């Protein structure tokens, strides 16, 4: 005989899971108890939301499904924001939650919450398991759904009696057969042909690269495509890292908080090729204006994204890597040199000049310098707020990655995501950049970092205000700073030290860079607190 909890653990082993991020509770005890006897590492985070964020960082770093676990009721509910954050950024997650006994479901017993109901609109799929014998199929399907097509979180809610229930023997299904789930991964040949014709006819093409390029592992193919054609590239926030930041063909991030040159290029183009990008409102504020003068080829694995936000001339549904392969087979196109010159000119002309304040760290140039000092494959985790924009626009990525909560904009993402990333890629430099606001949303995770001895470097941009909204208030609310002044921020250096983590303050770029040198040499975690002037703007 084999118990439900044992089956759950065996399923994880079958799926090659090595780490789960979680927090225990009464009705998930059978599962954790079984897990304890195995090679699968359980990382105890300090709040469930961070379990989901850490699993997200882990998933992104390894291109593998991340697993987070919580108990019923408050545990599951705390995890919601992390699940929704993963959903918006198409991150493959399995969220396992304990649930109260199935025979009392719906009676509002202690720590009961309808978590499958609550998560319905931001999971790719969810299961409430009603029979122990269903567990192998459910897990097999869940991993398949989370990791294929457009990836996303799948929730498995398992009542405690289902975990305790026993069946004769465990067999893991070899094949998945979900009748209503068959994602198309190859572009339609006719559409590929039409797309090529449209590219040939264009004089001012631009490629907008989004997270889908990274998700599908299409980065090398993508680079081949742009090298062959010479088409200039802009990226969305999720697409940062596809191109090395200093590549002459790369103009930068587009959008309301992006590079002006990138937006001007898009608005002057006669052809926009959207690659795994969903044209979110922060990326393109007025898609109707753009399509007035440009044709749009939209390549995405999710047909529902095509035409949702921007009118499309040629839709291509498929996995980015396959579609690029299909396009590369026949393409014979060189971007007109006049257009390339024009774009390069814009890029120079609109190079932003950072404003400096004496006695403070100027964050944009510091991030540029710091990201130049780390190793090529470094993982930069940016939080949400001004710090995110500073990183997005100034990080000098070579072959590294950029993790942030792009779609949902969830504050507190960077530190737990960095934990996941470091556990996934122990040999890479992992840097979390956050503000003093966002850091305080997940600073409890310093404990996890200390316990797991994770060599993560945390940069806190300390300006004692909630900078992004503060800036908004400057622009649109007559500088009335309603509820954006933090007034008291803890002494972050002492705080870190109390966890046994080294830390230091910097009040100038020279000082910050000097400290960074030493910080990067050490194999221990470090918190670098940069005093930043509250008047520093995001762009």
């Amino acid at each position, binding site marked *: 005989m084999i118990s439900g909890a044992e089956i759950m653990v065996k399923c994880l082993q079958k799926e090659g899971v090595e780490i789960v991020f979680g927090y225990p509770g009464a009705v998930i005890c059978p599962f954790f108890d079984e897990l304890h006897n195995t090679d699968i590492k359980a990382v105890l985070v300090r709040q469930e939301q961070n379990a989901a964020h850490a699993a997200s960082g882990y998933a992104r770093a390894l291109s593998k499904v991340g697993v987070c676990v919580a108990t019923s009721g408050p545990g599951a509910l705390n995890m919601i924001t992390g699940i929704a954050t993963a959903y918006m950024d198409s991150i493959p997650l399995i969220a396992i939650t304990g649930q109260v006994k199935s025979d009392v479901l719906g009676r509002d017993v202690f720590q009961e919450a309808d978590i499958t109901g609550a998560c*319905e*609109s931001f999971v790719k799929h969810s299961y409430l398991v009603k029979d122990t014998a269903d567990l192998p199929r459910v897990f097999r399907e869940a991993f398949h759904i989370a990791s294929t097509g457009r990836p996303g979180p799948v929730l498995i809610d398992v009542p405690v009696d289902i975990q305790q229930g026993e069946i004769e023997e465990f067999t893991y299904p070899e094949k998945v057969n979900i*009748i*209503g*789930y068959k994602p198309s991964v190859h572009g339609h040949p006719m559409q590929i042909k039409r797309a090529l014709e449209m590219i040939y006819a264009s004089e001012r093409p631009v490629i907008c690269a989004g997270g889908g390029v990274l998700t599908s592992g299409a980065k090398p193919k993508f680079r081949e495509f742009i090298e062959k054609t010479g088409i200039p590239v802009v990226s969305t926030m999720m697409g940062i890292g596809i191109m090395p930041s200093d590549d002459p063909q790369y103009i930068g991030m587009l959008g309301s908080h992006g590079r002006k040159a990138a937006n001007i290029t898009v608005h002057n183009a006669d052809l926009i090729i959207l690659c795994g990008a969903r044209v979110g409102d922060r990326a393109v504020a007025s898609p109707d204006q753009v399509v007035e003068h440009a044709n749009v080829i939209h390549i995405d694995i*999710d*047909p*529902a994204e095509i035409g949702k936000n921007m009118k499309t001339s040629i839709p291509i549904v498929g996995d980015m890597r396959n579609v690029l392969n299909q396009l590369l087979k026949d393409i014979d196109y060189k971007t007109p040199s006049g257009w390339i010159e024009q774009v390069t000119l814009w890029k120079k002309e609109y190079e932003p000049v950072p404003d400096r304040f004496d006695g403070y760290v100027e964050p944009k140039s510091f991030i540029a310098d710091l990201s130049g000092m780390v190793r090529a494959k470094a993982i930069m985790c940016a939080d949400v707020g001004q710090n995110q924009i500073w990183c997005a626009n100034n990080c000098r990525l070579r072959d590294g990655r950029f993790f942030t909560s792009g779609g949902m904009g969830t504050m507190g993402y960077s530190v737990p995501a960095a934990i996941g990333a470091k556990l996934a890629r122990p040999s890479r430099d992992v840097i979390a950049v956050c503000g003093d606001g966002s850091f305080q949303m997940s600073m409890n995770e310093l404990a996890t970092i200390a316990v797991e001895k994770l060599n993560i470097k945390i940069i806190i941009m300390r300006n004692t205000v909630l900078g992004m909204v503060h800036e908004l208030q400057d622009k649109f609310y007559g500088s009335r700073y309603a509820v954006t002044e933090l007034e008291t921020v803890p002494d972050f250096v002492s705080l870190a030290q109390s966890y046994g983590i080294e830390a230091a303050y910097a009040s100038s770029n020279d000082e910050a860079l000097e400290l960074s040198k030493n910080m990067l040499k050490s194999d221990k975690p470090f918190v670098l607190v940069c005093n930043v002037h509250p008047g520093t703007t995001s762009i």
Partner: protein
Amino acid sequence: MKYTLSVLVENHPGVLSKVSGLFSRRAFNIESLAVGITEDPNISRMTIVADGDEYVIEQLEKQLNKVIPVIKVRTYTNGEFISRELSLIKVSCQPKQRVDIMAIAELMEAKIVDVSVNTITLQFADTIERFETLTDLLKPYGIREIVRTGTVAIEKDSIACRK
């Protein structure tokens, strides 16, 4: 414009809420939603009448297709399907009016399913347009209550075969 969508779904608990949740979340306006098991007990069919332009209906189709237990989505175009709705209509009816209402019922092919001293209840299974005609005719007598199932629709084989 009104569109009729026919959606095949796996017959699992929770599927209805997954589909209906979509409408509120994506701000789709639906007129009616009828669900029932098909010839295959593992599969249910939902017939949805939705209001919107082409963009809205295309989005609705695509979003429905993303729901994992949704097997197939078809939007019917005019003339290629037969649609019916069952309704029960309770009308005020004084004894001397009974003959008039019975005449309307006969004319419209509605069935009288209940009669009391002051009311008469009709059962009517037809298209929405015919339903509106019937209620227009009954309005002068005073409609007390209407219960409708929502539209169900099936493809016309005569047309499918010709294709």
